[in-house]
């Protein structure tokens, strides 16, 4: 039991710090694309501290507060089950399927909290967010199934060891290119970036779920964004890019995954919900299914 205490404390912190870096990178890349200077280095921290330092905190009921706790709790649990170089955490106790389900707990928590705010914009935002989840999770699951079929196990530690056994040649992306590419498109959807940002559409539904979030509630959502980018990046790296041999190489891969998505996002407009579903169920699903067929063939 004691050996885990270090993991419990450090893994979420590492995730938070890396997350801040990822958010900063995202805003800087957006600024550079718009020929702007971009925010200072500590801007994400300033935002979060300012939100937590708000003098008045508006709440819409006990469920609104509980959802914030579920949000942070869910992601902290997800971080603990994500193996990173140096810390294996509880990856042995719960495998990849458990991790995918634990990532749904914060989404459900957010949905319940926004629902209890009794704001129509929030409800429409959550309905679109859940529809988007349905859209991007199917190609993602096909990619994950294919990967697990190829590796023969769902224990994340073993998956990382299998990929590191033969160096970059035995990486998921190398052995299963189609699955990796399908997975990447799905992961782009999971991050809620521009083409698939229908549920935070500021112009239409006033930032959807975040409409009644203010002060420390909004701060928690900013933290969630950091955790979300980090978690998705690490899952993709673990599955297809050979996981973390050492920290610098691992961080480079995670930043690379998020960079691809962030670079793409600022060039696109926003898909409508049904266009998004049709796109997600056509291209990434098709590619992933082809990859799955290949995996099942041999």
């Amino acid at each position, binding site marked *: 039991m004691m050996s885990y205490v270090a993991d419990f404390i450090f893994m979420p912190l590492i995730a938070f710090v890396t997350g801040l870096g990822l958010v900063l990178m995202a805003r800087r890349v957006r600024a550079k694309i718009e020929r702007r200077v971009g925010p200072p280095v500590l*801007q994400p921290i300033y935002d979060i501290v300012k939100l937590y*330092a708000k003098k008045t905190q508006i709440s819409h009921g006990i469920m609104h507060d509980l959802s914030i706790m579920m949000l942070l709790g869910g992601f902290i649990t997800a971080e603990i089950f994500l193996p990173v170089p140096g810390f294996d955490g509880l990856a042995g106790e719960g495998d990849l399927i458990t991790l995918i389900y634990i990532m749904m707990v914060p989404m459900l928590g957010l949905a319940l909290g926004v629902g209890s705010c009794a704001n129509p914009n929030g409800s429409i935002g959550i309905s679109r967010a859940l529809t988007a989840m349905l859209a991007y999770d199917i190609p993602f699951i096909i990619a994950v199934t294919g990967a697990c079929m190829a590796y023969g196990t769902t224990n994340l530690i073993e998956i990382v060891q299998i990929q590191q056994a033969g160096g970059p040649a035995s990486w998921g992306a190398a052995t299963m290119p189609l699955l990796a590419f399908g997975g990447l498109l799905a992961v782009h959807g999971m991050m809620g970036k521009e083409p698939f940002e229908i549920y935070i559409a*500021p112009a239409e539904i006033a930032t959807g779920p975040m*409409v009644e979030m203010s002060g420390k509630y909004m701060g928690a959502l900013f933290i969630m964004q950091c955790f979300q980018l980090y978690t998705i990046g690490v899952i993709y790296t673990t599955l297809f890019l050979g996981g973390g041999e050492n920290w610098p190489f691992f961080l480079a891969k995670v930043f690379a995954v998020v960079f691809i998505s962030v670079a793409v996002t600022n060039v696109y407009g926003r898909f409508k919900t049904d266009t998004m579903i049709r796109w997600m169920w056509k291209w990434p699903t098709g590619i992933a299914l082809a990859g799955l067929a290949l995996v099942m063939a041999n």
Partner: protein
Amino acid sequence: MSDKLPVIEDQPEICRSVDAGERSVWTRVMNRFADHCRARSLFVLHYCTGCGAIELPPTITSRFDMERVGVSPMVTPRQADILLITGYLSIKTLKRVILSYEQMQSPKYVIGFGSCTINGGMYWNSYATVKRLDQYIPADLFIAGCMPRPEAVQQVLLKLMEDIDAGKANGWQDYYNNYDRYLGNQQALFGESWHTPTDVIAEAKHYGYLADGTMGRHTDLLLKRADYALDRVPEDYPERGKNERRLP
């Protein structure tokens, strides 16, 4: 009619309001750090009330890029810190402005763009526009000019950041401390039955900003009429008149 107010010279310099009792070093350090962060992360509410809204895009996009200093636009009053009143305010728009102001989370700051918010501007003699913004909601800073250029907007934001850093931008406390005065002016304009869904007095009580100016003659009117309970809707709720019928 509303009683005439004595002429007030410039806003006196209010030194940073000391919280109740002597505070420990820890809270002072934390407050100092909080003010530091508040100054560097400001969310501007996209509230384009008048003709000045066109000045905002250049200040935020690549030419003047306010994100360098941490200012970024936000959609709803809940998440915003700065409320920009860009130009003239008709009486109907002022109702929405007051509603949005009260929905904002304090510490919140109001910046009045252009002379319309200072003294009426070119609509000074119109029956439909409001002449002085700071009578109805506490305005921290004004920018003179009949629509100031983005450089002026940039300067006012930097000035606001200095005030926040120094802990001086406390207009929002004034709204709590002297709510009765503000409410009196508002009721003078909109009528006795005027009230917003936000219960400012309860909020002030909750966070300890009750001063002698908070409750008064006008708030008694408010408490009599406004029923924040859910089932009763006051008859003459703004724009909720019975004759609101669509053309056949």
